[in-house]
């Protein structure tokens, strides 16, 4: 009997990071007191009409471009009609016929090759309100009602759990770096539905599709897919017919469980939203948005490699978008990239992690950081002093120079002062050692001088003076 092959498609819902909601001017913020960011539009009050937040269209076009999609230049909205308590108007405004983007792709790295995961379409829609079930009652929080969402739908081109995870991770990275969304799965700003079917290797027709709704984490995506493939394999091998159904991944038993059969699904009675006129997008408008596209991680990796930054540091930078921004700023100011990257992913990151804070919670400024890197590059300070200065920079808003002065960290570069320390160390014995092994002797002496000066001797000047004195 020939093998069973899975075919997977993924739908991702992502909340957009706009200031306001999509069809009203309520604020779009997470984690506020329930039912405080609402108005009569969000509540679906009689007589209210939707407006359209231009920022959502702009972010939508930006997302389409980032995902290599074509932009729909003539689009409208549709109503999806269904009754549910979290759906204030009992219809959702979405885009069924004219999604803002279509025919795109996201490229994933399979190690030995790159694979394009094709995007069928991506459209704008409004989020529902949040239901909280408590003691047999349902409470509704309308703060989320009307938050802008983009739904991104792949073609059924994903072959296994590994590709699925790589795709979602890559998509998250793009949406985060594109400034599209927070992509926090735990806060619900990114939600995943996975469609899986199995077919025999020699069969070209796709098998019956099962949908797994609202998977809560990337690791759960992998688990859910593996579980579902195994479940369907068993059924098929026992000649049980797979039914089209919607399932969910139960985190407590780590299995997918049935929610409802597809046959009983709603008939959504889609029709064009009459309250929002058709929207025409001009080419020049799309071109303007193209100019605002940020550098994505895949391009960043190439750029950093060219600057000589090592792979471990690159990964550390990419995985922390905020710190990465600081390095990009340093580079744009003409600062040494390698030293900058090492400081940022080294002592700086360690300090932030240890204290569980963000760089914005410290007193570090980009100008101070640049000054520190410049001084290290020109050897004006040693790396040991550099560490001390950095640790001061977290707490103090003083300039680097002021920090050095206050903490008596200025390097001793005065030749006479240094000669006073060096000269007593030079004797015939040392000179003999020096003639045997130049480097080792100089290193030893510098170590001794640093001990005396508590690391404040300018190593360049000391080196020069030592060479001169020893060759006398």
């Amino acid at each position, binding site marked *: 009997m020939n093998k069973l092959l899975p075919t997977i498609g993924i739908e991702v819902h992502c909340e957009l990071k706009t200031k306001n909601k999509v069809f009203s001017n309520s604020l779009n913020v997470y984690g506020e007191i329930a039912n405080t960011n609402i108005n*009569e539009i969000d*509540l*679906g*009050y*009689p*007589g*209210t*009409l*939707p*407006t*359209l937040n231009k920022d959502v269209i702009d972010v939508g076009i930006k997302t389409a471009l980032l995902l290599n999609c074509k932009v729909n230049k003539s689009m409208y909205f549709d*109503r999806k*009609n269904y*009754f*549910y*308590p979290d759906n*204030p*108007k*009992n*219809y959702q405004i979405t885009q069924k016929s004219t999604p803002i983007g279509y025919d795109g792709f996201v490229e994933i790295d399979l190690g030995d090759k790159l694979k394009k995961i094709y995007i069928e379409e991506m459209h704008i829609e409004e989020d529902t309100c949040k239901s909280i079930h408590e003691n047999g009652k349902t409470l*509704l929080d309308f703060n989320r009602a009307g938050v802008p969402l983009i739904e991104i739908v792949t073609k059924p081109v994903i072959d296994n759990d590994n590709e699925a995870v790589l795709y979602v991770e890559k998509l998250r990275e793009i949406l985060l770096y594109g400034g599209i969304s927070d992509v926090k799965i735990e806060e619900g700003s990114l939600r995943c539905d996975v469609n899986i079917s199995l077919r025999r290797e020699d069969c070209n027709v796709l098998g019956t599709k099962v949908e797994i709704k609202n998977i809560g984490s990337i690791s759960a995506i992998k688990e859910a897919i593996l579980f579902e493939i195994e479940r369907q394999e068993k059924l098929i091998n026992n000649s049980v017919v797979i039914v089209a159904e919607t399932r969910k991944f139960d985190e407590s038993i780590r299995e997918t469980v049935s929610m409802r059969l597809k046959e009983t699904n709603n*008939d959504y*009675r*889609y*029709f064009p939203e*009459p*309250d*929002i*006129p058709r929207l025409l997008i001009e080419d020049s408008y799309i071109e303007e948005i193209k100019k605002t596209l940020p550098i994505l991680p895949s391009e960043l990796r190439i750029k950093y490699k060219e600057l000589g930054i090592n792979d471990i540091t690159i990964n550390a930078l990419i995985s922390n978008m905020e710190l990465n921004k600081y390095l990009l700023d340093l580079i744009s100011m003409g600062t040494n990239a390698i030293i900058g990257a090492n400081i940022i992913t080294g002592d700086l990151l360690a300090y932030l992690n240890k204290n569980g804070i963000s760089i914005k919670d410290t007193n570090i400024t980009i100008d101070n950081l640049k000054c520190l890197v410049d001084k290290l590059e020109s050897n004006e300070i040693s790396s040991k002093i550099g560490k001390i200065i950095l640790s001061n920079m977290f707490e103090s808003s003083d300039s680097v120079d002021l920090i050095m002065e206050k903490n008596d960290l200025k390097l001793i570069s005065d030749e006479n002062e240094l000669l006073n320390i060096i000269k007593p160390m030079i004797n015939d014995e040392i000179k003999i050692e020096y003639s045997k092994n130049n480097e080792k002797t100089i290193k030893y002496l510098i170590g001794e001088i640093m001990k005396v000066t508590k690391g404040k001797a300018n190593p360049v000047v000391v080196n020069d003076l030592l060479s001169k004195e020893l060759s006398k």
Partner: protein
Amino acid sequence: MTNYLDLSLIEINNKLKNREIKPIDLVMECFSKIENNEDLNCFITLNKEEAIKKALELENKEVDNILFAIPIAIKDNIITKGLKTTCGSNMLNNFIPTYDAYVINKINNCNMIVIGKTNMDEFAMGSSNQTSYFGCVLNAWNKSKVSGGSSGGSAVSVSSRIVPFALGSDTGGSIRQPSAFNGIVGLKPTYGRVSRYGLVSFASSLDQIGPMSRNVLENSMLLNCIVGKDNNDLTSCEKDSEDFSRLIGEDIKGIKIAIPNFYVNDNINEDIKSNFNNVVNILKNKGVNVDYVDIDYIEYSVPLYQIIALAEASSNLARFDGIRYGYCTDKKINNADELYKYNRGEGFGEEVKRRIMIGSYVLSGDNVQEYYYKALSIRKIISDGFSNLFKNYDYIIGPTTTTLPYNIGEGQNDAVKSFFDDLLTIPVNMAGLPAMSLPIGINNNLPIGMQIICNKFEEAKIYKLASFIEKELNLNLDPRGDLNE
């Protein structure tokens, strides 16, 4: 009782300016007239306390515009902050809104005084005001006859001279048909001319708020007040401000008028036709060119309306589930499905439920292609047909209704009848055009109206022709007869 409200708007305005009368005099007169006409059932909710308060506030203010301190009645599907807004339905019998409709802000800016909310067919679904949860409205000319609808309360409150003005809404004829039945002037403006924000939607692509008044000039003055681009309604249009009365009095000689053959077909009552033909003859004698024309598919307007309006309505009325506002059943509810079933089953009346079911059906599954999208494409053809006519003609005219006001109770068991009451008004909504119903005769003490239709945003032209005809006919349109006799 005083009778200041029987004076023309200009006379009232002068008396207010001269301090001969105060705003409170007008308000008190209104409420005593409401009491005397309680049997007409025009109002669902009165705004007495607030109206008196407002009138007293206005005493110290400058009379700065023609509508200052003028009482107005508001159809009960227009949202009024703090004032119960029922849409003529048990569903919203307890609904007190938290905001004002755009048009309410507009009339407040002119310092008009809202007297109350008028009776209407439930959710504006009907053309005889018999589907209202609050009972039907009686025709002021003959109390055994219907008022027409759905803006029946608004029409009768004006025709019975309780208020000089009312706001109505028109989805398929709901301003024009009751205006014709009651001998008043009612205008459905161009779609997009008046913001729909705060008008409880029936059919979003057809609904429009409009002024209802005793005569043509005053109608234009109320339109002046309520128009404007509203950023809260994406379908409202940006237009330069204009005085809609500016063309009144201009010569009409040489204007070109088209009469669609459909508007004088055999289904039209003979008395209506003869009154209409009388007007046509007057116009011809004044040097107006009149042609009879055809508009493709116009005869399908009623089925188109049933598909498009009801599809939109089925979705617009989905929000009424009793969760956030509105009717909530006393029955014990075990799940969400039961909640919808009981709240909606008990909250809505029969006609509304029938229309929601038809609307849901035409959008369901493959029907959306077979009915809804096909209807949209035919709507486009009708709309283009009107546009083409306006390349050669200034006006399209015809009767407003096919029948005279009929007996209360008649046609209630005929689900299709109310749609055919709107046979001649629906095409205008389909094309988004402005149209007025103007009284042109009284037959056996029942009024007859005609429609004047213009191209989009040409309301000023409508007022010009309407005013001319009004002057020529010089009818006494007070149902109480000549009070001086």
